[in-house]
């Protein structure tokens, strides 16, 4: 068991290091100039050298992503609860949420920039893409309750409030967490796409703007360094949402069940 776990950690780590080493070797052996393809070592050095600039941008992008995710979680969950408690509301407004979802955010961003400051527009774009999966999943969860359990609550004359609190919400939790995991990843993507569209420089410049800016200046190592930070942010969000999901579900839900080999 322990050995199995060690191999599971070791193998991907080794593969990753091997890929980096190969990359480094190819760049050095072929004398590829950094402006075409920088070596990993140079990207690392750039990350350290440009940290004051990049860290500021990281904070900007991450805080926008998290704000959007929190807003999408609160908004999506509340709307799903309203939809579940009052179905006419769902029939009325669900099409609007679908329209917002299927319209690519990159197409909405320029329009939002007409009405909002770049920072606000980025936040709204990020919110829009994260909102729908949370709403749709939570809605599905709130309505996919075991019919026998609903009958049981009806037989014991449970109020609809208690039915929601003790039955629908716990039943919807795995669905909501699935939506949160998708929404977390999408919030970052939404923020990055909107930053590129907004192109805001100076104080409020996020990581995506650093990539665009470095591209114009042919500062390819810095492009890669910013890219690394975006990837790391995405992984961090994924780890957080997955951990949250595990913490809440591992006692009872099959998705978190570890199967004996």
């Amino acid at each position, binding site marked *: 068991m322990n050995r199995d776990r060690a191999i599971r950690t070791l193998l991907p780590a080794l593969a990753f290091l091997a890929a980096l080493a190969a990359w480094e070797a190819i760049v050095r052996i072929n004398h590829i100039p950094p402006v075409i393809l920088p070596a990993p070592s140079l990207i690392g050095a750039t990350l350290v050298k440009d940290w004051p600039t990049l860290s500021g941008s990281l904070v900007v992008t991450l805080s926008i992503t998290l704000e959007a995710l929190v807003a999408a979680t609160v908004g999506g969950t509340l709307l799903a609860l309203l939809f579940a408690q009052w179905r006419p509301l769902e029939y009325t407004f669900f099409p609007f949420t679908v329209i917002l979802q299927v319209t690519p955010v990159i197409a909405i961003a320029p329009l939002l920039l007409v009405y909002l400051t770049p920072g606000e527009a980025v936040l709204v774009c990020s919110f829009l893409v994260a909102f729908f999966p949370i709403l749709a999943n939570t809605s599905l969860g709130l309505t996919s309750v075991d019919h026998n359990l609903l*009958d*049981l609550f*009806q*037989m*014991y004359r449970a109020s609809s409030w208690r039915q929601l609190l003790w039955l629908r919400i*716990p*039943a919807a939790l795995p669905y909501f967490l699935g939506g949160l995991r998708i929404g977390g990843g999408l919030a970052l993507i939404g923020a990055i796409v909107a930053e590129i569209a907004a192109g805001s420089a100076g104080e409020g410049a996020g990581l995506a703007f650093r990539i665009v800016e470095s591209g114009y200046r042919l500062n390819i190592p810095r492009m890669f360094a910013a890219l690394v930070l975006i990837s790391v942010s995405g992984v961090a969000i994924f780890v957080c949402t997955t951990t949250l999901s595990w913490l809440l579900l591992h006692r*009872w839900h099959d998705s978190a069940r570890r199967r004996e080999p």
Partner: protein
Amino acid sequence: MAAPLPAARAVANATGDAPSAPAREPLARLAQVGKTFQNGVEALRAVDLEIRRGEFLSLLGPSGCGKSTILRLLAGLANPSLGRIDWPATEHDLGFVFQEPTLMPWANVFDNVWLPLRLQGQSRATARPRVEEALAQVGLSGFDRAYPRELSGGMKMRASIARALATRPALLLMDEPFAALDEITRMKLNDDLVALKCELNATVVFVTHSVFESVYLSDRIVVMAPRPGRVVAEVAVPAPQPRNEDFRLRAEYAELCRETSRALHRAMGAEPAGGETGSQ
């Protein structure tokens, strides 16, 4: 039809430790009850049925004969289209056991059994003695912190029965509760149910499609026919309760199984009342 043996009842009351309550007071009465679903399917037609306090009543019939519909009507989960259901007794708390255990997977066994009491407004502390008593009655003492997925199929069903018993219901409704279990577990649960029923002097309406199960468990078997669902025969099982393995070996048991089987076969071959062909 076998003539009910009053002597058998007298023996049951004398030997069983259950209080000799006035066993035949009606608890619920269905009068000319008909049920037609919204899709036009006639599930029940002109059903007259009396449920008497303290009896174990089985509803036996092929699928689609409206057995489960009767339980849903009794539970108040559906309303009859025709006729009415009377409750002569003042208190009629119900317990319902479904074909599946139907436990809340996010709640442990204690919280699942607590649910009916919690819905009545009892706090965890107030409900604890009653929940633990119900768990002891079904043989699940010490499993209160287990989650449903950690239990076997039979234990899940026991937890489900404990939940139904939590409110000390006057009437326990069971909808093919053991149909999904293996034979060995089912026989064990049948024995435990018989013992529990006598201990609590409970009234049980038990839906099943097994002739053997119904004869083993019941005081009275109501045989139903499908399309439209209706009552076609009634078989009294006068053997004393509680029964045990020996009962299965007795000639009386075999004879009652044969009689019930014949009634069931007649029911399945029978034309619908009024000579109509039932629309499906």
